């Protein structure tokens, strides 16, 4: 297990989320940074990421390839490949305790029990040499002092709960005998077997066909409702976000550029990147002439611009955008955006076509 050596990291962010009214959040990340390379010349891959999730809530982290969404989730789970990657700053509070300063053994006890994770490709996450019954039972026995029979009974019960048809038969099958959708159900069964407080799902439906994706999303939602697990879902798909999220964090080039309740993000998008991303989506209504685009592509991490990381591509960029990274500022209550020109109409005026 990779051990994190960051014992007393200074808390760098001035913009940590406020504790929710619902009480202590299950997960609270403050100013998390992930870096690679030598200590004297580190390349920052994730910078100053702060987020929190309360019990029973779903936070979606959305962004394109290389935005740092998966690195963030791996850092939270303590699964970063260290070295070369390392947590460079911040705190990760799980039920109030900092995971980064915890003994590796203690952290390993939490993982798979209180906090669990599912990945995009279920085939590579399952061991091809063991039956799925054995694999689910193993997760249970790793953390619970129970007999093999009881663990097997739990595995069977879990297969039932993720609605796998003929679970008694499936218990003794191997991963290769199942379809992609069924394997992802097995992964979910495994992840929920110990009744975790936090489930991290990294692109759980990306490898699946759309009709199977709909089944899995609905399953996850229903199970979450029953168990009150906090869900951190990583995705690139704004459709999936709209479907499951309570809160959303939009990431670009290693930073959170916008954060807020799901309705606010979709109905009142503030950051130019979020707006461009939504304009890039083809619509099912067929009402667009030409798609809006974001020019260029994400700069490589070692050549990140000094100011706002989106500024080289941003149609609204002004001189001030290129000098310093914009702070994540609260635009409306609970809705934050890292853009010095948000809300746009206050800075650039109304669109030309609009009658006052």
């Amino acid at each position, binding site marked *: 297990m990779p051990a994190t050596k960051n014992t007393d990291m200074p808390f760098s962010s001035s913009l940590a989320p406020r504790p929710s009214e619902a009480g202590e959040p299950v997960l609270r990340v403050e100013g998390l940074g992930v870096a690679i390379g030598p200590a004297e010349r580190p390349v920052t891959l994730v910078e100053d990421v702060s987020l929190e999730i309360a019990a029973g809530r779903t936070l979606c982290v959305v962004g394109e390839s290389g935005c740092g969404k998966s690195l963030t989730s791996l850092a939270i789970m303590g699964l970063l490949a260290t070295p070369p990657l390392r947590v460079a700053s911040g705190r990760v509070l799980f039920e109030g305790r900092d995971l980064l300063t915890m003994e590796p053994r203690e952290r390993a006890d939490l993982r798979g029990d209180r906090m669990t994770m599912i990945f995009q490709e279920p085939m590579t996450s399952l061991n091809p040499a063991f039956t799925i019954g054995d694999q689910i039972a193993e997760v249970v026995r790793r953390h619970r002092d129970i007999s093999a029979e009881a663990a097997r009974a739990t595995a069977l019960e879990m297969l039932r709960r993720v609605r796998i048809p003929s679970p008694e038969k499936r218990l003794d099958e191997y991963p290769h005998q199942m379809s992609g959708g069924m394997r992802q159900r097995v992964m979910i069964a495994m992840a929920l077997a110990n009744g975790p407080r936090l489930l991290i799902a990294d692109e759980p439906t990306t490898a699946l066909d759309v009709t199977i994706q709909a089944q899995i999303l609905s399953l996850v939602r229903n199970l979450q409702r029953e168990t009150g697990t906090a869900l951190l879902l990583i995705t690139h798909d704004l459709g999936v976000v709209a479907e499951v999220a309570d809160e959303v964090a939009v990431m670009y080039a290693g930073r959170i550029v916008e954060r807020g309740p799901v309705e606010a993000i979709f109905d009142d998008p503030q950051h130019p990147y979020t*707006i461009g991303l939504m304009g890039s989506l083809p*619509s099912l209504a067929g009402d667009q002439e030409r798609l809006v685009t974001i020019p260029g592509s994400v700069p490589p991490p070692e050549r990140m611009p000094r100011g706002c990381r989106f500024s080289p591509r941003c149609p609204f960029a002004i001189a001030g955008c290129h000098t310093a990274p914009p702070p994540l500022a609260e635009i409306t209550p609970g809705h934050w955006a890292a853009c010095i020109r948000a809300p746009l109409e206050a800075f650039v005026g109304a*669109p030309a076509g609009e009658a006052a």
Partner: protein
Amino acid sequence: MSTILEATDLTKHFRSGGGLFHKPTIVRAVDGVSFAVRTGETLAIVGESGCGKSTVGRLALRLLEATSGSVKFEGKDLASMDEDALRGLRREMQMVFQDPFSSLNPRMTLGDIVGEPLWLHGMGSARERRERTRELLSIVGLRPEHAQRYPHEFSGGQRQRIGIARALASNPRLVIGDEPVSALDVSIQAQVINLLEDLKDRFSLTLVIIAHDLAVIRHMSDRVIVMYLGKIVETAPTAALYAEPLHPYTRALLAAIPLPAPGLRAERKLLEGDIPSPANPPSGCRFHTRCPFAQARCREEEPALRDAGGREVACHFYETLPRADAERAVAIPESAAKRRRMALYREHRDRQESDAAAAAPAATAGRALEPSA
């Protein structure tokens, strides 16, 4: 409208496995598929994994030999052609592949990759080919001076542009794109979709787009073929298909798409079960194992593709099915704030683009969409 490509009763069976003691399994990837591509249209072929859509694309260019059935390009039967004749014809029809990382030779420069079809088809002198290559690069929004570079120096979106430039090199009239944008990030995907649409207009291309993303297809195509397990289940003009899908599978497919609108979130009727294996497809209608409306006849008798007024459906009962009222509205309600910011973005984006074009006159031959190197 004339027909540029016609496929009749195309069938492709793959043998898989088998050996001394095992009988090989026959995978019926494509099973009796007929369709026509009209000159100048964009035709989409859509379906989930294993429906045979990619195989159809490859059969249409005879990159794979069909088990039976025929493909005619402007009336000429591809199967009866010898290699020379086929190579000549391939100038007219080209393919763009899904994965820009594995479909470009990493040891060749951009210039060689894009210029190779010209050389293969013996088009022009070496100098003319070089000129043409540079022109092609600028047409797809890359810089002509990049001709000396190698694919690994470019991002996914730029590589897909390279693949498109290569496909265009021989002045084809038909381009088949096999998931041409599905490996790309949303923002890059939009750039490439716009590029393909520009090129289609500019060079009067006929496009066949093979894809699984129904929103991309809605945006790009004029007509849609929906496939399920090696069969066509529905074909219709795009607007009609999305307004009222007739086949239960098409309905389920459209209902399953998560819409980027949290306000439209609702518990929906979902398809049960998995996609069956094409090695062992269900009897009768192949969709009957998952169809919410299946009856006894569906298990026994395979439905033929039949006329449904300007479109075709392969369902015994589509006329009597309950109206598609369970279907969701696909138009996304837009808040005033979002509409206004979208308009602002569009405005400033246009300004940004014309500024970039003014600053870099060298790149004006194509649309300078990706100015960064």
